[in-house]
């Protein structure tokens, strides 16, 4: 092994300093998570290991615990406890009225949605263009120093599916992001592909970099409703929108846990325009970035991007 190899190996290993106590604490935390997530599974496990008399005792104890929970805890915990008793899965969804977003708690069986999945891809702009059916180029550099970090492809369904069926679709949709055969198998749900480029600018005075995303997807909505937010991107009509969106905790990677009440975030801006039956957007992702990319800067980014596109 060379000197460099030894250095790398040693540094990565010595970089990790963990005590046995920390491992034990971590396991306890994991055990708590699993026991909370078991929900209706927990009585089943008890049934497996206990005899008849203990089964009755355990069930009664569960019910007592749930009743105490209902009596003395927060609204969210009470809602979760009610779910277990009534065996009805309740989830939190958002409903939009004008510019306002309202959080509503309803049975999952009453919720339909249009899911989407995404992943980072390592293919060229030419290959992305073939997949999305539109010639696109993500410049390596844009707006005086923003560097392209990642290309993303995403896939959505235009047809709504029920929330309870969502997980059945996720694997199929993920497979269909790059695979045309899998994509065509979803045709009855009217799938579409979109793409994003994630850009980062590392400033000497900024600790972590400034980010934005440029995305495009097939046109789906009428933007005329946002006429009061209209701006000009050269000769093109654009819209500068402050987007409110729900942030759920994750249930598993990239999958929102909608049984928990989301927080509504407002620190998300989007400069949107339509071109060739596609929706384009420059998306500025969070508060730190918003302070660094204002509306005028976003318009300049959009202009440069449009100019960089192939004929």
């Amino acid at each position, binding site marked *: 092994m060379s000197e460099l190899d030894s250095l790398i190996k040693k*540094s990565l290993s010595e970089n990790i300093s963990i005590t046995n106590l920390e491992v034990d604490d971590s396991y306890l935390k*994991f055990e708590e998570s699993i026991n909370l997530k078991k929900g209706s599974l927990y009585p089943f496990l008890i049934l497996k290991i206990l005899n008849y008399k203990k089964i009755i005792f355990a069930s009664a104890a569960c019910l007592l615990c749930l009743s105490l929970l209902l009596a003395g805890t927060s609204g969210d915990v009470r809602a979760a406890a009610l779910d277990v008793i009534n065996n009805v899965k309740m989830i939190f969804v958002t409903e939009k009225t004008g510019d306002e977003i309202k959080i509503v708690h309803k049975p999952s069986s009453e919720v339909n949605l249009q899911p989407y999945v995404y992943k980072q891809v390592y293919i060229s702009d030419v290959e992305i263009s073939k997949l999305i059916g539109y010639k696109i180029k993500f410049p390596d550099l844009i707006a005086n120093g923003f560097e392209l*970090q990642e290309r993303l492809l995403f896939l959505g369904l235009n047809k709504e599916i029920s929330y309870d069926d969502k997980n059945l679709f996720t694997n199929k949709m993920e497979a269909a992001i790059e695979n045309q055969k899998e994509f065509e198998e979803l045709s009855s749900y009217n799938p579409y592909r979109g793409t994003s480029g994630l850009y980062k600018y590392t400033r000497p005075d900024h600790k972590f970099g400034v980010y934005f995303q440029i995305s495009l997807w097939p046109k789906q909505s009428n933007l005329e409703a946002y006429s009061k937010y209209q701006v000009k991107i050269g000769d093109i009509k654009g819209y500068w929108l402050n987007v409110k969106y729900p942030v759920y905790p994750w249930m598993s990677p990239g999958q929102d846990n909608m049984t928990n009440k989301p927080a509504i975030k407002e620190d998300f801006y989007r400069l949107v325009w339509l071109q060739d039956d596609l929706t384009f957007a420059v998306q500025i992702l969070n508060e730190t970035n918003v302070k660094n990319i204002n509306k005028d800067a976003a318009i300049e980014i959009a202009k440069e991007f449009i100019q960089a596109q192939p004929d």
Partner: protein
Amino acid sequence: MELYDIILRYQNGDSDSFEELYKNIYRKTYGTAFNILGIKAASEDIVQEAFIICYKSIHRLKNPEAFNTWFYRIVVRLSWRLAKDPLRHTWGEDFESQVSDNTDQICSRLDICEKIRTLKIPLRTVLILYYFNEMSVKEISQVLGCLEGTVKSRLFKARKILQSELFPDSIVNSQKKFKEVGLNE
């Protein structure tokens, strides 16, 4: 193989074995996430998420010998998603909190780790899986879902960059380029 036995026991119904598995591979799991992300809290989150997924899915793992590649595929994907999502975490510098006694060694180690952290995520991940997780090129290709040639290429590139950063005198005609960049605010 010890890990293989623990997994088999768990799959055959010994529920205590999962705790043994957890504690057995915790350091490697946490270390993988931390070396990719550089953030303690986020790395612990990833450990928790990865083990929850493992707990739910390990019964479906037909070949326990493939556990390593299967499990670290989960860890790497979780780390990558967190790394690219500025919404999820406030990024912080946590390397300093790993300090122990010897200042020179610490500075040297932190310097190398800092250089590793400046590598792009695909290169950094390959480096970590190779040197920290001690995986073979084939195993790394299975974790990342790419060709062995791609792994070798990334490993070569990562080492080359680190070589030039850490041992600049050994590189002939090396140059650093600086760009003056600015934003109108």
